[in-house]
């Protein structure tokens, strides 16, 4: 973060696979961003985007105390991405603006899925599901069990290479999951929480540097998790065509890549095992996913 006291503005840069997003605004607006959005170095084996620079500006918007707007400035004319009436709303709205911009730019080169990604032993597991299915909780539980972290929400997939890449953002923990994870991650108990869009506040959990996998990883298993309170934990194998339907429904940008994107998605599935996971028990879910990956390696 660089800042200028004379103008009371600061700037912070986020880098991810050749994408460079600069955020400018009052210093308070940038607080916590480096922890929530750890930048990623260029990765071996990943060509990345051609040089792509974006600029977001946070500024006061008049109106109520702390009203703000977030504008994207690199599109010719300024485009408002978000606004809010209260300063507490800023972090989550800025996060959303960053993620949206990231998806838009990275989506020109990569297939992007609403999914978490973890890896162990050089083999990736992609966990795709709609919001509220328990992706982040499961990803965090898997990382605690020794898996490497690539993402809890946005799976960046190099369709041509058939590999998943990390997305430089900390895990976003919803309040309902904190009690499940706090014994494994005591810092969650005292971590700052951020107000959401009318939802309960969220907390961010940044993996330790050694918990990140900073390399492309082949996806060897696809898991479609669903949290169901009290459900008997079960992991059932599904056909690749069933997995394709589920995966396509969680793809942010398949129409952009059209037939090539679909062919790449099919190719990803060809060599992988596909499972549906229903569980209300985190430890059991972690054990089931671990066993599924181990079974492929044996």
């Amino acid at each position, binding site marked *: 973060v660089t800042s200028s006291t004379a103008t009371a503005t600061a700037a912070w840069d986020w880098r991810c696979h050749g994408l460079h997003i600069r955020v400018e605004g009052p210093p308070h607006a940038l607080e916590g961003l480096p922890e929530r959005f750890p930048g990623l170095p260029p990765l071996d084996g990943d060509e990345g985007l051609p040089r792509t620079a974006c600029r977001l500006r946070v500024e006061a918007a008049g109106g109520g105390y702390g009203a703000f707007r977030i504008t994207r400035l690199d599109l010719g004319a300024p485009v408002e991405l978000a606004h809010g009436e209260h300063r507490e709303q800023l972090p989550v709205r800025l996060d959303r603006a960053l993620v949206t911009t990231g998806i838009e730019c990275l989506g020109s080169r990569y297939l992007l899925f609403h999914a978490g990604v973890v890896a162990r032993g050089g083999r990736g597991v992609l966990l795709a599901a709609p919001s509220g299915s328990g992706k982040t909780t499961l990803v965090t539980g898997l990382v605690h069990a020794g898996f490497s972290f690539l993402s809890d929400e946005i799976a960046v997939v190099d369709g041509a290479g058939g590999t998943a890449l990390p997305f430089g953002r900390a895990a976003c923990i919803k309040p309902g999951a904190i009690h499940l994870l706090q014994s494994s991650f005591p810092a969650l108990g005292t971590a700052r929480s951020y107000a959401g869009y009318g939802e309960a506040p969220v907390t961010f959990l940044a993996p330790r540097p050694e918990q990140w996998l900073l390399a492309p990883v082949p996806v060897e298993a696809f898991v479609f998790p669903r949290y169901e309170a009290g459900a008997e934990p079960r992991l059932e194998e599904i056909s690749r*065509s069933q997995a394709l339907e589920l995966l396509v429904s969680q793809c942010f940008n*398949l129409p952009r890549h059209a*037939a090539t994107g*679909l062919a790449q998605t*099919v190719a990803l*599935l060809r060599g992988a095992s596909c499972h549906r996971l229903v569980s209300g028990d985190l430890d059991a879910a972690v054990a089931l996913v671990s066993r599924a990956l181990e079974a492929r390696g044996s």
Partner: protein
Amino acid sequence: LTTRPSARPDVRGEPLDSELVLYDPENGRAYVLNRTAALLWELCDGSLTATGLAEELRRLYGLDDHCNLTADVTTCLGQLERAGLLVA
């Protein structure tokens, strides 16, 4: 039964296990065909009627002469046609 359906040449097929994934570039929709429907789709080259396609499928599957697949083939062709995957 007298038309000779033809698979749309711009629709791309990707094999996935025993099934075939079709992608329609006009509307961005994908379809998964089971093994038999995939075979039928691939046979739709504009040279055979539904009756001829049924006969060809019967032969490829090694079924008895008295086994008539015409009704099933007609149903499947109707589904492919409604999905816009065929040209008449």
